[in-house]
């Protein structure tokens, strides 16, 4: 040991001749403006509420109430066997509704399987929105009609579609923005990463909305990611991350509207994380008591999106008893109509199986279609 240290005393020749160091590394982008705030952005209960447009507040309220009723009705339809499954957004209505309301007509929505409500709030016929979950057809609507992509069941795979569409729109000179929705679990998928990276590199007019509802089926966020927040992930891609209280409809609407406007004027993509909570189980097939306690759910019920908005608006005299009743009645009317329409069995044409596989049927499919036709004819004769 001793001897060794004495042998290294003279500076080696290589060090003396070492070339000048390369230029000091600098970050390419100042990360500070991209970082999310430490606490989720809120409007309800703050002074900023006084500046909010009362008309918008009342619209948000009515949409939330209608959305809650929609969730309840769709859940009831699963119990009656009318829907195979329904992933409820009870407790998350503020995110769903504000997402739809932040978009202009020409914009596109890219929903996940849970985001039926966002599609309905955007104006999609509720029955058409439910065909995937009822089982009569995967996508019951023409995506171009409302500019709503098919509800995506594989997690996060719709995010690169949103990027590609927004990119294409910009290449064509259209000021169209794409809003892509994903859950907290979906942020772990590779497609989430690839979509954010492409969007940032291309400066595509896209807004990513992560609804962090605490769980991916049974797995809590802590087992999903070690990131400080999901919004922090934005920094690594070079886009701003925004953290918002997902149960504060006014705050979600404001953050999303700003992000959409920013994208529209060429400012590039934004990643928004909305902190919310899934009050119902993952779907009707899930037993939530296995992975969470009732006290946790109760705490979130106190922070319910409808409750906190209604309380604030009532206290400040923006919403009266009449307003509450009207919203409830409108929601009830929607639910009754939905129930009635969903109680009718859909009329299906089995030949549809072959109709849309290719633009032109292959010889093989024509043969198979003829086989099914013959089977159907035999059935109807029997």
């Amino acid at each position, binding site marked *: 040991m001793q001897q060794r240290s004495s042998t290294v005393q003279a500076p080696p020749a290589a060090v003396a001749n070492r070339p000048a160091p390369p230029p000091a590394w600098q970050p390419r982008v100042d990360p500070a403006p991209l970082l999310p705030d430490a606490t989720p952005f809120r409007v309800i209960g703050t002074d900023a509420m006084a500046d909010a447009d009362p008309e918008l507040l009342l619209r948000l309220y009515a949409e939330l109430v209608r959305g809650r009723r929609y969730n309840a009705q769709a859940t009831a339809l699963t119990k009656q066997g009318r829907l195979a499954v329904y992933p409820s957004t009870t407790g998350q209505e503020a995110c769903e509704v504000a997402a739809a309301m932040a978009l202009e007509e020409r914009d596109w929505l890219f929903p996940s399987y849970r985001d039926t409500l966002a599609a309905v709030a955007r104006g999609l016929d509720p029955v058409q929105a439910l065909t995937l979950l009822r089982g009569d057809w*995967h*996508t019951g609507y023409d*995506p171009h009609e409302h500019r709503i992509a098919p509800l995506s069941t*594989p997690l996060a795979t719709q995010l690169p579609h949103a990027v*590609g569409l927004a990119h*294409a729109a910009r290449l064509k000179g259209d000021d169209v923005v794409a809003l892509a929705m994903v859950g907290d679990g979906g942020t772990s998928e*590779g497609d989430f990463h690839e979509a954010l990276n492409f969007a940032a590199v291309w400066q595509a007019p896209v807004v990513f909305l992560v609804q962090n509802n605490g769980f991916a089926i049974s797995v809590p966020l802590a087992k999903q990611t070690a990131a400080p927040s999901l919004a922090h992930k934005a920094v690594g891609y070079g886009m701003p991350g925004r953290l918002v209280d997902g149960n504060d409809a006014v705050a979600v609407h404001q953050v999303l509207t700003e992000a959409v406007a920013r994208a529209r004027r060429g400012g590039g993509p934004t990643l928004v994380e909305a902190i919310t909570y899934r009050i119902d189980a993952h779907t009707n097939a899930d037993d939530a008591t296995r992975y969470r306690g009732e006290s946790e759910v109760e705490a979130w019920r106190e922070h319910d999106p409808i409750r906190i908005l209604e309380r604030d608006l009532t206290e400040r005299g923006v919403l009266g008893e009449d307003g509450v009743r009207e919203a409830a009645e409108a929601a009830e009317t929607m639910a009754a109509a939905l129930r009635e329409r969903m109680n009718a069995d859909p009329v299906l044409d089995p030949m549809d199986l072959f109709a849309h596989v290719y633009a032109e049927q292959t010889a*093989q499919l024509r043969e198979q279609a003829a086989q099914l036709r013959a089977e159907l004819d035999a059935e109807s004769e029997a």
Partner: protein
Amino acid sequence: MTRATTVAKTVAAKPRPATMAQALQRAMRDAMAEDPTVHVLGEDVGTLGGVFRVTDGLQKEFGEDRVTDTPLAEAGILGTAVGMAMYGLRPVVEMQFDAFAYPAFEQLISHVSRMRNRTRGAMPMPLVVRVPYGGGIGGVEHHSDSSEAYYIATPGLHVVAPSTVEDAYGLLRAAIASDDPVIFLEPKRLYWSKADWSPESPAAVEPIGKAVVRRRGTSATLITYGPSVPVCLEAAEAAQAEGWDLEVVDLRSLVPFDDETVCASVRRTGRAVVVHESTGFGGPGGEIAARVSERCFHHLEAPVLRVAGFDIPYPPPMLERHHLPGVDRILDAVARLQWEAGS
């Protein structure tokens, strides 16, 4: 018409040697010039012109917005192409190598192949995925896979593989013009194969799904496609010495499958061997043999045989010649067609 223009035209149309890579490049160039919605994207397709130079010069001619070097992410490339197609563009995607397309399989299978179907025709996917595929170029691991079995097992995709310079042009034009997604398998060992070809008056673009008889024969049919076509033609020449007059059918398209041309040939010859590089077990040959047996049973003098790659992961380059179906293995199979019941 003046004499000068006539001469110029004759000169321009005169066939000259061209490689398959050049014909493919020309197909993209012509399609892009004709249709502003055609976009090319992928890894290194711009400045470099692709690692096989198939997109050479396209970015210079059409700009970065239409020929785009993407980040290195296959799911992202295909996934964004889906969104571009939703907005009315016709993306032509390049996967750098066969085995590097696998990260994009989820997009391919879960979205590309079924978007038309799930939206009842409202949202077609007019995109092309170009995949340099197959072995024989001494590539290191993950550079020689024949992945067509995965593609043909996915309804909603067209799967195409050219074997000649002319077909490379014609089929790629047809693929880009198709309103359905096309997996375009480019036999990479044929990229530098040459033929006399007139780029100014290329062969008419045939609709996808038509097989072609490359060689007429009477005693047996070799059914093949892509990189195995030249091998089969060579085998057919060699077989003549042994008294076999072999017919060679080049499928050109695996989906849709041209039962008509294939079965007409087998009914004429009474015997068939399917030849391809990908594995035999679970490979396309099984499907083809079954179809032929079902449709031509009474015309068959012997069971339909297969000459395929072994059922192994693609071997290291120094061993690949043992794996790839070559002339001898094909001739052995042809000899076995002298089948007698019970033998």
